[in-house]
């Protein structure tokens, strides 16, 4: 079995005819066949469809038609992205078997760019979670250590890239759901500026926070993928109208003269391991040695990010998930055995459908959000959280007057044991403490693998940038990647443990 290469390498070889897309996809399907039983990265593997897509790419190459920037590159899609005629479950019983009648914009763009879809990846139900254990179809395991979680909610996508099932994957990030699993699986993961990538066809969780973004094995591949995804879309009114600056524009330019701030409140965040703090310091020192001006910076409101987020995101979720009612798609529960008769009235149908279809974490968030929005509590909870959001916007504005990018940990530690945090939701929520601020203010942020912990598992460092600062963010990320200590590689991808 040949070692997987980067998406850039694969696309260049396929375009030139040096390698056939059907062979590339077969190599990845063989790896999936060998290890998917252990990892469970996918809710659905699209083997035959991927072979057909790859064959079409090869035909285009043979016919001299341009096959696209991602020609023949296998891509895994988080299973909350709509794929026409292909089940899209959000890892929820309530959408089990649902086949969307349309493709998400990002799916269309990837297909037009020549990508080959190998499967739909597992996630925490409706992207609510930090370990992928909240999936109705069972957890995903970390390809570095099968007893550990891959992080979440895009754990299946992160694991798929780490295991070599696909060099690229898409995730969605509402409070860290791309960056935290990227850190725990030792891959690159980026949350773009809010509005840079169309959310059309992304099943909504918290609409003012959700963004789609790339997973990749390295920074340049993540930039390439983001450039394919980004751009205006008339079908998403929150998608920015302006043309995005290329994420690849400044790769390789180094960090000489750049001003980089280490966010004090996130470096000192609750629950952070000493090892993570140590790696962050190492990263700051390495960038300083590479010519950057590194100093500490304060984002005082960041301390309140977690609290604000766990009022705002559930509030938005409680509204968004009201659509699952058993009427138009998905599960309808409560039908009589044998006759198939519906419940007696529509209210009973709603209640039985939602009670049977949603898992515990989704119910918790819906109730938390309903409570935060309910009469008498709205001002104290939701209103206050929105004011915290304003304070955070101001703090970041002030920080970016003095700094080009900011540095922070991604996750509080390395991947934890499966089951370690499922009994206590608040402990699980603390995983997101360093990633949440970027979602609340709508700025881009990404996790770059930066060595490993004493347990041999990967760690990540986070680069934050102002709105539409993707070019400088990827520039710094590439420099960080170049000076990072050796990053653990999963044995499935040829590494050793």
């Amino acid at each position, binding site marked *: 079995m040949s070692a997987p290469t980067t998406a850039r390498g694969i696309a260049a070889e396929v375009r030139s005819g040096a390698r056939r897309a059907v062979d590339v996809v077969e190599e990845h399907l063989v790896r999936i066949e060998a290890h998917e039983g252990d990892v469970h990265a996918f809710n659905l593997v699209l083997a035959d469809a991927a072979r057909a897509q790859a064959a079409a790419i090869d035909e285009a190459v043979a016919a001299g038609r341009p096959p696209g920037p991602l020609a023949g590159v296998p891509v895994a899609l988080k299973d909350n992205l709509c794929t026409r005629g292909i089940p899209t479950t959000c890892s929820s019983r309530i959408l089990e078997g649902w086949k969307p*009648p349309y493709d998400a914009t990002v799916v269309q763009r990837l297909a037009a760019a020549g990508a080959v879809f190998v499967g739909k990846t597992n996630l925490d139900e409706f992207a609510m979670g930090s370990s992928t254990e909240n999936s109705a179809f069972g957890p995903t395991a970390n390809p570095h250590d099968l007893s550990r979680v891959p992080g979440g909610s895009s754990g299946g996508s992160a694991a798929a890239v780490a295991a070599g099932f696909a060099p690229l994957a898409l995730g969605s990030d509402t409070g860290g759901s791309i960056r935290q699993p990227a850190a725990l699986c030792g891959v690159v993961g980026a949350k773009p500026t*809010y509005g840079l990538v169309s959310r059309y066809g992304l099943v909504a969780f918290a609409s003012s926070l959700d963004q789609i973004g790339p997973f990749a094995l390295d920074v340049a591949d993540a930039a390439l993928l983001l450039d394919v995804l980004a751009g205006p879309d008339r079908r998403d009114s929150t998608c920015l109208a302006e043309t995005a600056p290329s994420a690849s524009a400044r790769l390789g330019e180094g960090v000489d003269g750049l001003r980089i701030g280490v966010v004090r409140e996130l470096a000192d965040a609750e629950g952070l391991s000493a090892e993570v703090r140590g790696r962050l310091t190492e990263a700051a020192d390495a960038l300083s040695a590479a010519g950057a001006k590194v100093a500490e910076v304060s984002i005082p409101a960041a301390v309140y990010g977690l609290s604000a987020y766990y009022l705002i995101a559930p509030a938005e979720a409680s509204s968004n998930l009201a659509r699952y009612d058993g009427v138009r798609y*998905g599960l309808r529960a409560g039908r009589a055995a044998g006759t198939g008769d519906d419940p007696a009235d529509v209210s009973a149908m709603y209640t039985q459908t939602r009670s049977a279809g949603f898992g515990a974490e989704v*119910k918790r968030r819906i*109730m938390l959000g309903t409570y935060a929005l309910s009469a008498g509590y709205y001002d104290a909870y939701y209103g206050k959280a*929105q004011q915290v959001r304003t304070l955070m916007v101001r703090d970041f504005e002030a920080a970016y007057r003095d700094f080009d990018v900011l540095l922070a940990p991604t996750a509080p530690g390395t991947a934890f044991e499966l089951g370690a945090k499922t009994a206590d939701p608040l402990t699980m929520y603390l995983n997101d403490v360093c990633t949440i601020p970027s979602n609340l203010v709508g700025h881009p942020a990404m996790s770059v693998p930066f060595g490993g912990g004493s347990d041999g598992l990967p760690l990540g460092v986070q680069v934050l940038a102002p709105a539409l600062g993707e070019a400088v963010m990827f520039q710094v990320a590439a420099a960080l990647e170049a000076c990072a200590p050796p990053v653990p590689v999963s044995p499935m991808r040829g590494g050793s443990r």
Partner: protein
Amino acid sequence: MATMSARITTQDVAHVAQLARLELTEEELERFTGQLAAVLEHARDVEALDTAGVAPTAHPLPLRNVLRDDIVGPSLPRAEVLAAAPSVEADRFRVPRILGEAP
């Protein structure tokens, strides 16, 4: 105005569950109440913040109304959409009765 000081009760949770059309067992009600109380307790740290006169932020972008010309375009194919529905009758979504009328 309510403050965050009152701990959420099982009655509160039963009420929001009903609002959200969720049915909970007694065991779930107890468990969820404790878990939600812990999260809300953590969220109380924002109470200490002075936010007098601070405008709320509902969205990271300065949202503006997006207008476009009203151009007729293709809609989703009706058959494909209805095929995803749990129950259909005469090209419509079929649901149990909504009010207490005779069936």
